[in-house]
C-alpha cells in the first residue's frame, strides 16, 4: 500500500529533464502524455482499419509492403483470412482502450480537472505518474504481439471464450497473442484504477474556496462520473483477464468446457463456463461504452455553452442524466448476450433497462437541442465538432433502440448494423468530442492557437466522411451482411461488394483528412499564433489562469469561486460573461434552485 496521505503539490517545480518531461508528477504534463499516447494509438488504429477496408473492397489486391508487417499473415502482400481478423482485433482493442478511454478521459481530464476545480494538482501525483506509465507499458505489451511468431490474437476485442482460452490450437495468435492481449488489458486496468482514484479524490476533496459540487463545469462532472464508472468497471475486467491468462499458462479451466474438440484435438480442460467470460467482460464492456462517451458529453456541453453564450436549459438535469447513464450502464450489459444462449427471460430483464437508458440519453440530447434552439452559436472548429458530436450521437443512438429489443437483435446481431451503430455512437461521436476538446483547449494547453480554417475543413471532411462510411453499414447489416468476414463469397453478399468498395474509398479519404488535423496540431504547436489567456471568453477556472498555466496552476493566489460555472449574457453585467472568479455581484445570475 502506498502513502495515501500525500497532498497536492508537495512537489515543487521540476528542474531535471526526466522529472519535467518524462516521469513528471505534474497533472498537466501527464495529461499531455496521455494525449500523445492516444494520438499515436489512433493513427496506428486507423492505419489498421485502412488495411482491413482495402482487403474488404478488393480482396486480392496486394498492399505493397504488407509482408513487412507479417510474413506469414500476408504472403505476397495479400492478407490471409486469419491476418484480417488479427488486424481487426488490434484495431478494436487499440481504439477502445488506448484512444477512446485514454484521450477524452485520461488526457483532457488530467490536464483540466484539477484546474477546473481550482486545485494545484491531483492529491496523489505519484499514483498519477504511475497511471500514465503503466498505461504506456500496456500499449507496448499489446503492440509487441505483432512481433511474436504467429502474430497478435484474432479473437476480436471481446475475446470470447472458449476460443480465446484454449491456446494456439484455435488459430494463429491464440496462444502467446492472447496472453499478451490479456496482460496488456490487465495492466491497462491498473493504470485506469490509479487514474480514477485521483479523479474522484480531486473532485471531492480538492475544490477551491467557493467551488461547490454544483458549481463544477459539466466537463468536470463528466470526468468525475466517468472515473466512478472506471473504478468499478476496470476492477472487474482485471480479474477476468487474470483468469483468462491462467487458463492459458496454468492449465486451469475457468472458461473452457469439457470435451471440447478444436481442429480434431480433444482439449484437456473440463467443466469451464464459456458464458462466464461474457458476463465478466460485458459487466465491464457496457460501462466502457459510457466511459468513452460521457467525457465527450461533458466536453461538448462545455464547448457549446461557451459558444452559445448561455447555459444549458438545465445544468442539474444534465448532470443527473449523466449520472443515470453511469448507474444504468451496469444493468444493461446482458443486451450484448441476447444470442449467447442465456435464459430468454434474462434477455427480457436486460432489454427493459436498455430501453430505460435511452431516457437519460434522450434528455441529454433534448437539453442540447433545446439550448441550441434560438442561440447565436459562434461557429468555430470546436463548436462545429460539438455539433457533429450531437449529430453522431443521435444517429448512432437511434439504431440502439432497434438493438435493445431481443426479437430484432437476433436478426441484426453480429451484422454490420451493430458495427455501424457502435462506430457512430461510441467511435465517431467520441472522436468528435476529442476533436472539440482539442480545438477548444489547445490554446490553454500549449499557449498557441490552432488554425481555424484548417479546423473547419477538417470538420466538414470528417463529418461527411464519417456518415459516408458508417451509414451504409446499417444498410449492409439489414441486408444480412455478417461482420468479421474477410471476404464476401455467398450469393446474397456478392451484390453488396460495391457498397463495401464505396465505404473503403470513403474511409481512405476520411482517414487522409485526419492528416490535416495532424498537420494543424503539430504546426500550431510550434508556429501557431500566441494564445491569449481567455481566447473564447469562457467563465470557468481554466480561463482565469495564465496560458499556459504555471506549474501550480494559479500562481501565487488560489482562486475563489463566486458563481455557478456558466454566467453568460447576464443582465446588467459589465461584459457578456462573468467568470467564476469574478467577485462582481450579479442581479440575475443563471442559477438553478
Amino acid at each position, binding site marked *: 500500500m502506498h502513502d495515501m496521505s500525500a497532498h497536492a503539490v508537495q512537489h515543487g517545480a521540476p528542474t531535471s529533464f526526466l522529472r519535467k518531461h518524462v516521469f513528471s508528477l505534474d497533472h498537466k504534463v501527464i495529461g499531455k502524455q496521455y494525449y500523445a499516447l492516444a494520438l499515436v494509438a489512433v493513427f496506428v488504429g486507423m492505419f489498421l482499419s485502412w488495411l482491413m477496408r482495402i482487403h474488404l473492397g478488393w480482396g486480392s489486391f496486394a498492399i505493397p509492403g504488407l509482408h513487412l508487417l507479417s510474413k506469414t499473415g500476408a504472403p505476397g502482400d495479400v492478407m490471409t483470412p486469419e491476418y484480417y481478423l488479427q488486424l481487426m482485433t488490434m484495431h478494436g482493442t487499440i481504439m477502445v482502450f488506448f484512444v477512446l478511454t485514454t484521450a477524452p478521459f485520461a488526457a483532457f481530464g488530467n490536464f483540466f480537472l484539477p484546474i477546473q476545480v481550482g486545485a494545484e494538482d491531483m492529491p496523489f501525483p505519484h499514483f498519477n505518474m504511475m497511471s500514465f506509465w503503466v498505461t504506456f507499458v500496456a500499449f507496448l505489451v499489446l503492440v509487441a504481439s505483432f512481433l511474436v511468431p504467429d502474430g497478435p490474437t484474432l479473437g476480436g476485442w471481446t475475446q470470447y471464450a472458449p476460443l480465446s482460452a484454449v491456446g494456439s490450437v484455435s488459430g494463429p495468435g491464440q496462444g502467446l497473442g492472447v496472453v499478451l492481449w490479456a496482460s496488456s488489458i490487465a495492466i491497462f486496468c491498473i493504470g485506469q*484504477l490509479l487514474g480514477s482514484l485521483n479523479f474522484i479524490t480531486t473532485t471531492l476533496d480538492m475544490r477551491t474556496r467557493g467551488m461547490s459540487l454544483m458549481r463544477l463545469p459539466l466537463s468536470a462532472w463528466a470526468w468525475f462520473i466517468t472515473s466512478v464508472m472506471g473504478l468499478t468497471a476496470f476492477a472487474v475486467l482485471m480479474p477476468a483477464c487474470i483468469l483468462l491468462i491462467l487458463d492459458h499458462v496454468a492449465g486451469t479451466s475457468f472458461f473452457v468446457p469439457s470435451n471440447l474438440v478444436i481442429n480434431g484435438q480433444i482439449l484437456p480442460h473440463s*467443466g469451464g463456463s464459456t458464458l462466464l467470460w461474457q458476463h465478466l467482460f460485458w459487466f465491464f464492456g457496457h460501462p466502457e461504452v459510457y466511459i468513452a462517451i460521457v467525457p465527450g458529453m461533458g466536453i461538448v456541453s462545455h464547448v457549446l455553452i461557451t459558444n452559445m453564450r448561455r447555459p444549458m436549459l438545465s445544468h442539474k438535469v444534465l448532470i443527473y442524466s449523466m449520472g443515470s447513464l453511469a448507474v444504468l450502464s451496469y444493468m444493461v450489459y446482458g443486451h450484448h448476450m441476447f444470442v449467447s444462449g442465456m435464459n430468454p427471460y434474462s434477455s427480457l430483464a436486460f432489454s427493459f433497462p436498455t430501453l430505460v437508458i435511452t431516457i437519460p440519453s434522450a434528455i441529454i440530447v433534448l437539453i442540447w437541442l433545446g439550448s441550441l434552439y434560438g442561440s447565436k452559436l459562434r461557429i468555430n472548429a470546436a463548436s462545429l465538432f460539438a455539433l457533429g458530436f450531437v449529430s453522431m450521437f443521435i444517429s448512432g443512438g437511434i439504431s440502439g433502440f432497434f438493438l435493445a429489443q431481443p426479437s430484432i437483435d437476433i436478426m441484426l446481431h453480429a451484422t454490420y448494423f451493430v458495427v455501424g451503430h457502435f462506430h457512430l455512437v461510441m467511435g465517431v461521436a467520441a472522436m468528435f468530442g476529442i476533436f472539440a476538446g482539442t480545438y477548444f483547449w489547445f490554446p490553454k494547453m500549449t499557449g498557441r492557437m490552432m488554425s481555424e480554417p484548417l479546423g473547419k475543413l477538417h470538420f466538414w471532411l470528417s463529418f461527411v466522411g464519417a456518415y459516408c462510411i458508417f451509414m451504409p453499414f446499417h444498410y449492409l447489416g439489414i441486408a444480412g451482411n455478417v461482420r468479421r468476414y474477410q471476404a464476401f463469397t455467398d450469393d446474397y453478399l456478392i451484390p453488396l461488394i460495391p457498397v463495401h468498395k464505396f465505404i473503403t474509398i470513403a474511409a481512405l479519404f476520411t482517414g487522409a483528412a485526419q492528416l490535416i488535423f495532424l498537420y494543424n496540431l503539430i504546426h500550431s504547436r510550434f508556429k501557431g499564433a500566441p494564445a491569449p489567456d481567455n481566447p473564447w471568453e469562457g467563465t470557468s477556472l481554466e480561463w482565469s489562469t495564465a496560458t499556459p498555466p504555471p506549474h501550480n496552476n494559479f500562481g501565487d493566489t488560489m482562486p475563489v469561486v463566486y458563481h455557478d460555472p456558466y454566467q453568460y449574457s447576464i443582465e446588467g453585467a459589465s461584459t457578456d460573461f462573468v467568470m467564476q472568479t469574478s467577485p462582481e455581484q450579479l442581479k440575475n445570475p443563471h442559477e438553478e434552485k
Partner: protein
Amino acid sequence: MATTVHEAPKIELDRLPRTGSGNGGWRNLVPSDGDLRRIKDHSPMPASTGIWVGLASITMTFAAFTSALIVRQGGAPDWQHISLPPVLYFNTLLILASSITLELGRRDVARFMGGLRGRVASPVRWLYITLFLGVLFVAGQTFAWLELRSQGFGLSTNVSYSFFYVLTVAHALHLLGGLGGMVRVIAKLNKSVLRRSTLDATSRYWHFMGALWLYLLLLLWMKL
C-alpha cells in the same frame, strides 16, 4: 523493536484549511462573501477519501472473483469439494490479532502525539507486533499452499483448487501492500514525520484486509 524518538512527530492539523492549497475541507467551500446558502458540501481529506475509493475498487475485484466462482460452480459436474488446510484457521487468528495490536499501536501513537510522551515508552512497539503478525500470516498462507501442493493439489488439479489459489494469492498480494504501508508508517514514525492521516489510511486498509479474509474464508468454507 524499540525506537528512539528525538522530537515530537509532526501532527497533521486535521481538517484545517491549508494556506495556498485548494484542499482543506468544507471550510474552503465557503465563499469569501460569506454566502452560505448554496454551500452544502462537506469534503474530508484526500487521504481519507482516497483509501475508501481504493477499498471500493478492491471490493469490486473480489466481487468479480466471487461471482466467477458462483457461476463456475453452478453448472459444473467436475466440481470437487476440498478440505481447507487447517493452518488457515490459525492464520485467521493471526490476522484478527493483528487488527487488535494495530489498534493498540494507534492508541499509543495518539497518546504520544497528544503529549503523553513520558507514559508511552515506545509508540511503535505494537506496530512492530502488527507487522510481525502480518508477515506470519503470509508465511502461514504460503505454508497452506505448499501443503496442498505436496498433497498433489495444484492450481489446475480442479477448478475448486484454482479458485482457492486465485483468491488466497490475490488476498495475500493485497496484504503485502498493507505490510508495505505498515513498514512506511513505522519508518515515518521513527523519523518523526508521520501524518495522522497516513496512519489512519493504513489502519483502514489493514482492517479491511482482515475483514476481507474473514469473508474469503467463509466463501471458501461454504463453496469449496
